[in-house]
């Protein structure tokens, strides 16, 4: 072993020792930071140092002090000779050997299959919607009850005169704030500008639509007052409120369902029925 090699080895050993010391320091640092009350950035740095030092030390050790490559292992090939494979197959089919028992083997297969299918039945309990299935739930929303007042996110009923031009107000059926399919919005538009009539009856220039995009159910949250367009921030579908809520751009294919509304004697907005079609994303049995 030459002197240069020895120097090389000594330098590697020093580097590894330094890395391990740093690692230990990182570990102690982490414990101290944690003990003093914790601080995410310092914890991450200390623990990163601990693992990083370990990685460096072990890496240098493997690279500088241990051989890389230089070994060969024989690879006897893939698979056994055909004779051996056949012998195994013969051994496995021994159950089937006496001819008359083939029927029993088939029956066994049938039994196992039946029990397997039977065991799948409890999965049906995961359907919590009851025997009616999803169709009813998807087609109807709490607005169906009729006569429900429109309330804002705080549960406060909305008066017709609060809906000023240029504002979009998200509304919910009174008493059903958490319902996922019920959110709607009201907006005041000049009926003279309508290219197409809204799908549901408005009142005094106020129209109400489902808030859920007909593409994938995101709330269509962004309103452009001048053009009367609603924009969905998820997949950039644009709906034209002046043309009956029709999609004019993006991946949505169906118009926003309208909500029929009226004003009661106290000036509050009320829905007279359900949306003009099921809200949100499409599904197979949607009319």
């Amino acid at each position, binding site marked *: 072993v030459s002197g240069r090699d020895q120097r090389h080895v000594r330098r590697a050993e020093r580097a590894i020792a330094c890395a391990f010391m740093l690692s230990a320091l990182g570990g102690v640092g982490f414990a101290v930071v944690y003990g003093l009350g914790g601080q995410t950035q310092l914890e991450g740095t200390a623990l990163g140092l601990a*693992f990083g030092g370990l990685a460096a030390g072990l890496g240098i050790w*493997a690279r500088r002090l241990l*051989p890389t*490559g230089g070994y060969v292992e*024989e690879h006897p090939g893939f698979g056994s000779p055909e004779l051996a494979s056949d012998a195994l197959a013969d051994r496995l089919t021994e159950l089937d050997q006496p001819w008359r028992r083939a029927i029993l083997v088939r029956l066994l297969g049938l039994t196992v299959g039946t029990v397997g299918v039977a065991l799948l039945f409890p999965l049906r309990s995961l359907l919590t919607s009851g025997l009616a299935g999803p169709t009813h739930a998807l087609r109807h929303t709490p607005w169906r009850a009729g006569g429900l007042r429109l309330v804002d996110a705080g549960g406060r009923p909305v008066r017709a005169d609060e809906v000023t031009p240029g504002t979009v107000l998200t509304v919910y059926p009174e008493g059903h704030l958490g319902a*996922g399919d019920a959110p709607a919005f009201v907006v005041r538009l000049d009926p003279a500008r309508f290219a197409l009539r809204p799908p549901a009856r408005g009142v005094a220039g106020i129209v109400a639509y489902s808030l859920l995009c007909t593409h994938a*159910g995101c709330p269509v949250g962004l309103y452009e007052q001048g053009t009367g367009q609603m924009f969905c921030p998820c997949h*950039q579908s644009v709906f034209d409120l002046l043309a009956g809520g029709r999609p004019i751009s993006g991946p949505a294919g169906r118009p926003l369902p309208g909500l029929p509304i009226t004003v009661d004697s106290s000036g509050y907005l009320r829905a007279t029925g359900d949306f003009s079609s099921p809200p949100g994303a499409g599904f197979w049995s949607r009319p």
Partner: protein
Amino acid sequence: MIVRRLVRVLDSRLRLSSPVRKALAKVFPDHWTFMFGEIALYSFVVLVLTGVYLALFFEASTADRVYHGAYQPLDGKSTSAAYASTVALSFDVRAGLLIRQAHHWAALIFIGAIVLHLARIFFTGAFRKPREVNWLVGVTMLTLALLNGFTGYSMPDDLLSGTGLRIAYSVVESIPLLGDWLAFLAFGGEFPADQTVPRMFVAHVFLVPALLAGLIALHMLILVRQKHSQFPAAGRGEHNVVGSRLWPSYTLRTLSLFAAVSAAMVALGGLFQINPVWIYGPYDPATVSSPAQPDWYVAWEEGALRLFPAADFHVFGHLVPSPFFPGVVLGGLTFLALYAWPFLEAWVTRERAPHQLLDRPRDHPARLGIGVAALVFYSLLVAAASDDVIARTFHLPITGLVWTFRVLVLVAPIAAGLLGYFLASALRSGSAGGFGELTRADLRRGVARRTAEREEVPEQPIRGRIEVWQEFGLVWRWRYLEPGEHLVLTCNSDYPGEQEATAAARAAYPGVSIGPGRPPPGLELPAAPVTRLPRPLTRTLLFAAWVVVVRLLRRSGAR
């Protein structure tokens, strides 16, 4: 000394020495691309460790809960238990935020490493016979990893992930005939259902990780059984594996990688904020944040949803909504193509022989072209998932941008695939070592020969010889030498007799001449085991300590 005693204790009960010695001698090829799978493995370990910690604090329920804690804006407010407990474990559990963020970063790196590993396997043809089995296991693990990433990301019940969950629900709902039933079955009712978070929790912490752990074990068992594939080079062939031995070189190297992966994750988790759910707020079906991007590994689906045009249509009065095509059909075809690829390629190329040597990517221009096209396609979809951010940053109209992406997604993969195909053909037919050395003549030849049949890549000619020798009058070894001793490859294990050694050498290098050799220099006889007694000073100290202990015990007994 301790090691020797321990080995004897275990060996006399379990008879371990022979299998363990064989395992420690296993040869691993030395190539940096073989690390991706290991990075995925170690990411999984980090994910399990950090995940168990998080599960101790997370409450998988959408029941109302009032948050009281260090995060002032939420203090005293009522949200779902899942959201409140996520905020609490981020702000009120010491080191909780570090662990949570490390867990999230680990998930991103886990799937990234899997995808890189898959690309390496694909471009080098490592999936060919007999390794199709492990390819199938690997693709299954990728789907499970995607599923677990998405459920984990969605569990905190925050606004951003809740919106993503609603999109996923809508995609399931779009499946013809069964969609609404499947959506109700999986999510537990009409969205948002109370059952969704607990179900995702069971899948995320129990079902899918258990499946993944089982499949990882299977993946590695098959790997050990089939042994590693390797790139062609001098001394490497279809009948051997050349590289470093598991112990000690490879063990230290891989442990170093484990530590490095852990270091990267805790450093990212400590220093780089990820998924700050307290900024997004709790989920509310009537609110949405803008811009909204999912984690990178589901972004290809999101991009496809953004680009696919409105294409609702009716079949016998029933609706097929447009998310069905980008959401279900694209995803289904993607994984179908991945599962089928090894069999498809074998069928088209009529190549059914087992392979131990890997292709260089250029050796198979058609495969390279298809792989490049796929990578470009999915990368563009990932980019399209951020089209709103791109539009906002560069002040571009969103409609024009969507149309640009639509054209690019169809044209760019084909262009890139063809380019890859021709460059690979040029590299293969010429003498250039890399893209930088390609000459015009190479390119012309590559284009001209594009219809030529794929030639067999000649195996490296074996010019060396083999020496067999006896070591210490005990065991036999052999080694392979190339002329001038530029390459010396020593057998990884030892053999009880000359015959066994010769047989192994012949199996590794068929047709190579075998002759007797001398033990290579530098070998030293192992020193006879010496029972080392503690040094006098240690002995004295131990004795003193014993005396003290005995006296103390006596005194306490006297009282």
